[in-house]
């Protein structure tokens, strides 16, 4: 029966081949138009960062630079050499790295354990608890800044990277739990049941059975958290100060600076530098991202 169907299917495929060629062209055209829509801003940013200010003022937005002018990249990274109030990205880049690593790791681990507990060890009211987590993703962050800083002040970690890590872990938890729960819910309960009959406990099952098959969703969670935390400006600007500020605050200071002549090439170079780590993650790990999503995270 199946073989018969396969034959029939191949015939069908063949018959529609000519029609397909036309379709393919239309298809490629649509995909290309969208690709242009998505790529245009990045293209503009990159070419602008290599132009001189004179070229930017006179020239065309999409024109290629006359030659590769690297000065703006240097200025964006190292600053202009003022001793005070200078804006550059160098040190802040590493601040962000210091903050993002622990925050991503902790929130991902907690999310995985929560997701596992909520799906494989179901208890009364677990759906409601999950709903509470889910709803937490909708809180407008501006409204929690003041009570948050009071709490941080009370805990004595106001104004430290540690406090910032805590904030990111807390508000990331809602997402990591959501992702991991949706992944684990699609994994057969039988494995866990079998292991429980064999006498394995909560953590043993988690580390020995669940974690090894969680790679796809952990990739998704880590990418999401990394992007969110790296790109955060609001918490960074509110809960840290001076030299400890994360990169988006430095970028903001650079791009939104209120005086002096605007140097668009430096702005664009800085923007690309600040977006570089996340861009790389998406380009290199994009494949695993889709794979991870496919593996079940999006199944409700």
């Amino acid at each position: 029966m199946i073989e018969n169907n396969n034959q029939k299917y191949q015939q069908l495929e063949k018959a529609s081949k000519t029609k397909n060629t036309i379709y393919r062209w239309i298809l490629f055209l649509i995909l290309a138009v969208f690709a242009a829509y998505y790529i245009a801003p990045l293209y503009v940013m990159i070419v602008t960062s290599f132009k001189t200010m004179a070229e930017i003022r006179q020239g065309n937005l999409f024109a290629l630079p006359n030659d590769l002018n690297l000065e703006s990249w240097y200025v964006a990274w190292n600053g202009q050499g003022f001793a005070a109030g200078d804006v550059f990205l160098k040190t802040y880049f590493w601040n962000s790295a210091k903050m993002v690593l622990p925050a991503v790791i902790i929130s991902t681990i907690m999310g995985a354990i929560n997701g596992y507990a909520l799906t494989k060890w179901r208890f009364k009211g677990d759906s409601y608890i999950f709903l509470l987590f889910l709803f937490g993703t909708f809180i407008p962050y501006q409204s929690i800044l003041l009570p948050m800083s009071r709490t941080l002040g009370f805990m004595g970690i106001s104004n430290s990277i540690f406090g910032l890590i805590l904030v990111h872990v807390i508000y990331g938890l809602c997402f990591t739990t959501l992702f991991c729960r949706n992944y684990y819910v699609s994994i057969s309960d039988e494995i866990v049941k079998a292991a429980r009959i064999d006498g394995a406990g909560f953590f043993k099952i988690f580390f020995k059975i669940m974690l090894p098959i969680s790679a796809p969703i952990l990739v998704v969670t880590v990418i999401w958290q990394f992007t969110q935390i790296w790109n955060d400006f609001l918490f960074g600007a509110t809960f840290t100060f001076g030299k400890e500020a994360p990169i988006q605050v430095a970028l903001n200071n650079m791009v939104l600076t209120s005086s002096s002549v605007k140097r668009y090439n430096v702005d664009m170079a800085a923007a690309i530098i600040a977006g570089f780590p996340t861009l790389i993650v998406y380009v290199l790990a994009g494949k695993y991202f889709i794979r991870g999503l496919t593996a079940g995270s999006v199944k409700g």
Partner: protein
Amino acid sequence: MKKIIAIFAMVLAPTFSYAGSSAEVLHWWTSGGEAKALKVLKDDFAAKGGAWTDMPVAGGGGDAAMQTLKARIVANDAPAAAQIKGPTIQAYDREGVVAPYNIDAVAKAEGWDKLLSKQVASHMKCDDGKAYCAAPVNIHRIDWFWANKKVLDSNGIKMPKSWDEFNAAADKLQAKGIIPLAHGSQPWQDATVFEAVALGIGGNDFYRKAFVEADAATLGGPVMVKIFDQMRKLKNYTDPGSPGRDWNVATAMVMEGKAGFQIMGDWAKGEFAAAGLNPDVDYYCGTTPSDNGYLYNVDSFIFFKVEGQDKVEGQKLLASLMMGQDFQKVFNIYKGSIPARLDVPMDDFDICAKKSNKDLNTAAKKGGLLPSFAHGMTLELGVKGAIQDVVTEHFNSDMSSQDAVTKLSAAVMAAS
């Protein structure tokens, strides 16, 4: 794993500094002349053995910085000094986060009452004017015209002495295909232009009634309609790309001769200076038409209540340095403003600054020395914001002047 532990250690290691005095300074001066000026202060501070921590948060005229500041205060961890001005200084005092006025002793010892004009000093005092709690660094003037000399000269235009003259000049430029008014239509820039127009058309007493006393009858009166009429004219003198444009981009349009005039505070001068241009050679600075009016904007730093002797010492040192003669001179040459301190020699300043200084004294005598509302020197922030909303909404739509006036008085009623 070791690496992760190392990173944790790096993150968690507290940073101690054992200097005798320390200060954390929150500001939004991040580049160009401001940064250079700030370096002077920082170096002075370090030379006296202090440990300086910079907290620059740029953007939106301090919007982002306000988030940081409020978060810090609510966490009981206020910075030593923050760039706060106008009635907001006294508002913070009423919230009880400024007393016991650590810098008052310094101010009294150095005789700030004699070094500052009464008007400026009154902005710096808390506790019903009994104690100094803030230090002024400059006086900006708002009501300026900045004009491209070549454009004006070649079209036979003189710096306008009345708003009618300005309109005539603008019509002439527009006919030649030159943008008459370089403007970035952001709410604060619209309000900046608006207050200059209000001062000119309404006069000094009108301005005081409307924007210092928030008098409902004045805000809803017929003079206000005329002011909005002039705003509509000005809107038609701007180019289509104006909404959202940064002020310094607008200044660049004047420099390049794409536009004739700009109405902006004297920080615009810093842009001309940075481009190597000189007043009366490359550009004109003139005041917008008014009856000896002078809209001032005093940048100042408030000194909050802080814990720890080193921080208190840091505040005292900082306040003293900010009021230093030398600092006030160097800082203001970079910044485009004039010193807040009265006894700073003006010899090294340019002609625009000298004019500003002279006009200030005249205006003070004739009752035209008035606080800028657009820059938060008068009115509660909520009321100021409500006025600004109406001004910018009118400027960026086809709302009639009468509607704008009606909205204005309603908005101010609701906000106060």
